[in-house]
């Protein structure tokens, strides 16, 4: 089974990298760009066929290691 995990800075927490990229895009003339948020994209191969177990374990992985829930949100998708 393949899992895709997305980690982003929480909406109410300043993302300095996102703000810098937004500024650069404006300088380039892409005036339509609003807020930019930078995050992480992780691909995990899971050696299991049990979807419920995979979801439970992924939640634990995200809470404990993959995201810092003080400042980050996460979501994941499972395939296969």
């Amino acid at each position, binding site marked *: 089974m393949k899992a895709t995990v997305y980690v982003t800075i929480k909406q109410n*927490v300043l993302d*300095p990298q996102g703000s810098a990229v937004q500024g650069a895009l404006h300088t380039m003339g892409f005036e339509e760009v609003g807020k930019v948020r930078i995050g*992480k994209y992780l691909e995990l191969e899971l050696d299991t066929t049990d979807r419920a177990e995979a979801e439970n374990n992924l939640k634990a992985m995200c809470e404990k*290691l*993959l995201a810092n829930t*003080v*400042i980050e949100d996460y979501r994941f998708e499972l395939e296969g």
Partner: protein
Amino acid sequence: MKFAVIVFPGSNCDIDCYKAVEETVGQPVDYVWHTATDLSAYDAILVPGGFSYGDYLRCGAIARFAPVMSEVVKAAAQGKYILGICNGFQILTEAGLLPGALRRNEGLKFRCHSTLLEVVNNGTAFTNQYAPGEIIDIPIAHGEGNYYCDEATLAELKANGQIVFRYKAGANPNGSIEDIAGISNKAGNVVGMMPHPERAISQILGSEDGKRMFTSILNAWREKNGAAVNG
């Protein structure tokens, strides 16, 4: 009094911390590798700066699961003195020993220069040799020192006197909330700070204002243990 300096793969201020203990308080000090599973011999534990595990994923995120960290958590619960400096601060927040998190500097730059700090709480085991509100000169060297916590946590930090150091007003180098440079846990025996006191122990290094953090720890330990000055 016995000090431990924890060493992770990628730590790079471990030698500075070790030398600072030798130079400032002259107490026994050991390097302790991240795989160690017993810290019972130590009274104070220094978690040094650097780039543990290459700062992969997030600063401190992987180091926090090193075997030695469960011992650090145990030592914190026993009331031993734990000081996390720079990456050490990041590791202690990731480990949940200190509240909040360190974000990327507001200006995105790695800032490496001396900074003026205000000693906000001189009642801790780490700051008892400073005057209240004293301004001290301690260098920083970090790209991710922008302290963040939510409103409720901030109110708690203030109510409990857990804000130990602030950057001097108008000289916040990284955008951290309320100019916070260092905090303690509720019990006061765990402190994390972005500036490097171990780099400020001699005028040759530009400042010796960091020296008194180490003498504070020894002083607190002696008071607690009723120990006479024996070296």
